[in-house]
């Protein structure tokens, strides 16, 4: 989908479907790098797309490619989830992702979750970083964005992203990678 078309996903179901199919896999993987519960992951996947629908009309193509934009939204959604209770969120959700899961889906979601255990360990280990640095580092280290894409996702300048990345790496180098590259923190999720 071209950046120019993105605004249409807010009101054109066909445009939305194209957008959804393009990004649903990446969004789910993004989510399970951060949460370990299949039901919460399903909720958050739905939330990310709902947030994208809400945000699309104000999307500006200068903000960069849609993929990076989606990651910025996903990050906000997941961060918000950690700041408040799931109950609060679900009371307002238009679509409850978890209600759409059947047992097979849960198993598949669990497989995704298992595959991303290491990423979640890294994610948990980032808790001590300043928020700005953490945001950039997450997107680059966990989600394979380039620093420039991470900057787009976060609405910051590329040079700022690089500086933050540099600082995050410097402060993490000791705590995260000293023990033969093995993160010591456990996966998170509540």
């Amino acid at each position, binding site marked *: 989908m071209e950046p120019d078309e993105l605004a249409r996903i807010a*009101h054109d179901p066909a445009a939305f479907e194209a957008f959804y*199919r393009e990004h649903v*896999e990446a969004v789910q993987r993004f989510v399970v790098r951060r949460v370990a519960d299949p039901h919460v992951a*399903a909720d958050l996947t*739905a939330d990310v797309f709902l947030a994208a629908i809400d945000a699309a009309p104000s999307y500006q193509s200068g903000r960069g490619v849609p993929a990076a934009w989606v990651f910025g939204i996903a990050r906000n959604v997941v961060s918000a989830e950690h700041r408040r209770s799931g109950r609060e969120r679900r009371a307002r959700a238009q*679509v409850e992702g978890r209600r759409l899961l059947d047992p097979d889906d849960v198993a598949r979601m669990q497989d995704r979750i298992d595959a991303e255990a290491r990423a979640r360990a890294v994610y948990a280990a980032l808790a001590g970083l300043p928020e700005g640095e953490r945001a950039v580092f997450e997107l680059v280290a966990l989600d394979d964005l380039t620093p420039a894409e991470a900057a787009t996702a976060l609405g910051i300048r590329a040079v700022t992203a690089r500086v933050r990345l540099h600082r995050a790496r410097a402060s993490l180098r000791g705590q995260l990678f000293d023990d033969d590259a093995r993160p010591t923190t456990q996966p998170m999720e509540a």
Partner: protein
Amino acid sequence: MTASPRFEDRLLQQLRQVVADRPAPRVAQRRRPRRTRLALTGVGVAAAAAAVAVVATSNDGSHSAYAVQAQADGAVSVSIHSLSDAEGLQRSLRSAGVPAVVDYVPDASACAAPGPPAASPGTPGMGGTAERGATLRTGTAGSGPRLSQEGKPPPGDGQRRTTMSVVSTRGGDATFTIDPGTLKPGDKVYITTSTGAVSSIGMAIAAHKPTAACAPAAPTP
């Protein structure tokens, strides 16, 4: 990796319904400029003098010193985080099509005329010049990349125009944008600092090296 058609499809149907139920879009889109950039063109200084204005907070960290980015419209945006690699910035800009001359050496002696009171008193330069003691310093450009330093550049070789851009700062970095397409043959883009701090970076476009005001100039022609 593969999204088999289950949860994903059910979710899609629900979300499609959400989209379909939304009110029709307004035609007018809200516009929110994300960054204000002040560019003053045609600062018609008859003499060679090019004023350079600067805004900023200071931050002389030692991380990636600068970034040069070509924009889709042909302009080149520059962010300067620290004054540590003038040569590298100059090289980057030239390879991006900007005939730049970058000189971070503060030089109070080159002050042509004192400008208004220095803008950021809290950021003394590292060049040992207090307050207004700094100046736009330039090197000679073009093929001979020597950064000559003269005590007091003569202001009088009547250059035709100077375009001045106010450098803005975000997060301690000086940022500005140059459109090489607007340069005339012979123009150079001078990037200098009046105090030796990022807060005092200025950019001027002129055919010959401009003589700086000693302090951030008021944005008046």
